[in-house]
């Protein structure tokens, strides 16, 4: 350890909890987890020696909806996550310090906790014009990001912006807003996509890292498997209506009132990996589909550039025209079918003509 980091134990003591209560807590935890008697000592030891992870939270080109989501976390409460579980050393949106005082913390953390802190990034850096489209503390955000990433242990890419680019990267992307993993390539990056990500998913990932002291298992795209390995559709409470073939055909029809599947209304649940249908939002109150609106696929790559949120078939842009697969397919098959018909007609005419010319050939 490069510096004396604050442990969980010292935080617990600082909050007025006695050592006696602390030991009771460790014994109870060990008992309730069904562990052997000696485990209580090991838990106490871990809490006494494990440091709180310092976190630097930076904001690039973004809308702060990730922060808005994060502070609404119910399990664990955002205050517990920020005040007890991690050591949030820098977050220019919610920190008390400002100006040079705030910027000094960056340098300090970087020097003091070299290779030990987590860099949480909300938003992304625009690369065009040398990064001039996002100036933070007097210099381009991309420079600040690269500087802080150099000595970070890992990077958290909060939200669709940091993970995929999001709306500021929408075509034609004039500022060249670029997701974090295209800019920083030599550090482990945990993508927590969503616009915003679910509060409990954000704090859940942090809890995992602080509890187990390691990064969560990631999928092919760098998302934590525990929250992003299943689609909204797989756990949707309206799934039975999908399997039954019961769909909302238009807004406000009888099916909509009955709460049928929103598949035909362009719900992106079948192609969206997120935990909305299980964890839900606002402390488990609801999620878009439960409120009668389809999923827009906000945690998926390019969701902002795929045409209407209300179409089942989304647009294909590769042919220079914005058409969906059916429009392109029907046009292609129709053109080929017409060509075949014309070809058959010409063949028949030619054959008839050649038979007339050669009447002996009676085939």
């Amino acid at each position, binding site marked *: 350890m490069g510096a004396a980091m604050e442990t969980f134990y010292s935080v617990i003591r600082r909050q007025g909890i006695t050592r006696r209560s602390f030991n009771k807590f460790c014994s109870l935890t060990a008992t309730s987890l069904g562990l052997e008697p000696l485990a209580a000592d090991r838990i106490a030891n871990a809490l006494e020696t494990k440091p709180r992870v310092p976190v630097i939270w930076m904001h690039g080109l973004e809308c702060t909806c990730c922060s808005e989501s994060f502070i609404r976390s119910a399990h664990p409460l955002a205050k517990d996550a920020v005040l007890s579980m991690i050591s949030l050393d820098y977050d220019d949106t919610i920190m008390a310090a400002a100006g040079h005082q705030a910027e000094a913390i960056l340098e300090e953390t970087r020097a003091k906790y070299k290779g030990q802190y987590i860099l949480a990034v909300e938003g992304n850096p625009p690369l065009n014009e040398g990064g001039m489209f996002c100036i933070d503390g007097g210099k381009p955000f991309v420079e600040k990001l690269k500087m802080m990433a150099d000595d970070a242990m890992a990077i958290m890419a909060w939200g669709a912006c940091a993970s995929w680019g999001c709306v500021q990267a929408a075509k034609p992307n004039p500022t060249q807003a670029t997701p974090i993993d295209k800019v920083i390539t030599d550090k482990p990056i945990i993508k927590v996509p969503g616009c915003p990500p679910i509060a409990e998913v954000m704090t859940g990932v942090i809890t995992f890292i602080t509890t187990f002291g390691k990064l969560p298992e990631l999928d092919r795209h760098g998302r934590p498997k525990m929250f992003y390995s299943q689609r909204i559709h797989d756990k949707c409470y309206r799934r039975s209506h999908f399997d039954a073939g*019961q769909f909302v055909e238009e807004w406000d029809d009888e099916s909509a009132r009955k709460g049928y599947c929103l598949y035909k209304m362009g719900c992106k649940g079948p192609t969206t990996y997120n935990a909305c249908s299980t964890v839900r939002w606002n402390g488990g109150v609801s999620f878009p589909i439960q409120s009668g609106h389809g999923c827009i696929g906000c945690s998926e790559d*390019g969701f902002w550039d795929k045409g209407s949120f209300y179409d089942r078939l989304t647009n294909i842009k590769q042919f220079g025209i914005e058409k969906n*697969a059916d429009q392109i397919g029907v046009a292609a098959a129709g053109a080929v079918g017409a060509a075949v018909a014309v070809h058959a007609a010409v063949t028949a005419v030619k054959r008839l003509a050649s038979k007339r010319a050669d009447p002996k050939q009676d085939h």
Partner: protein
Amino acid sequence: MMDAVECPAQSKPDLAAIAADAVGGHAIGRPTVYVYEAPVRICHWVNAFSTVALMTTGYLIGMPLPSVEGEASANFVMGYIRFAHFAAGQVLAVFFITRVFWAFVGNHHSRQIFYLPAHRKQFWREMLDEVRWYAFLEHEPKMYVGHNPLARTGMFTGFTLFVAYMIITGFALYSEGSGIDSWQHKLFGWVFAIWPNSQDVHTWHHLGMWALVTFVIVHVYAAIRADIMSRQGIISSMVSGERQFRD
């Protein structure tokens, strides 16, 4: 019309085969040659029927039937359609693999649709002849025991490439339901490295269906037309395996 034995000048190695085959068989006085072995024919028809089933059910998955009434527990329309699609897809995959396997152990005709001899000048010369024939610039079609170069290119693209593409993207999409630990995901999950958003995989899989529809139109038309115009048994050969040269 020219004599059949003189006609297949382009496929010299088969002259002897035709002559030899012409003696036996049930075609009296007409030369026939055994082209499509039983596994090839079985694969052809199984693939044909499963492809039709896949197109129908696949279209209905992308564009479902009108909503049904009643309790959700009493209906399983979408469930059955999806089941039929997945089942037909597995059948197609198995018979596609069988067909690929047969290319290694079957006769030389069975290998035709899996590669193109693009390095041979003759291939391109004959291809040009075929294009001219289909553009009504040639008077007589050339005769081939198997596929002509144009047909071979069509089969290679429309069947080998398109179907392989559909199987790969299909299993990748199937792995979304079967889960990240499934063998489907382990084998075909890389598709999502190409298209990170599975919405795109759905879209391109859907477009692949239309590519196959287009292929089927051309395939069926070309078979019927060649059957009539080239005076060879094309359609019957996929049933009996024997290609008859009718004059």
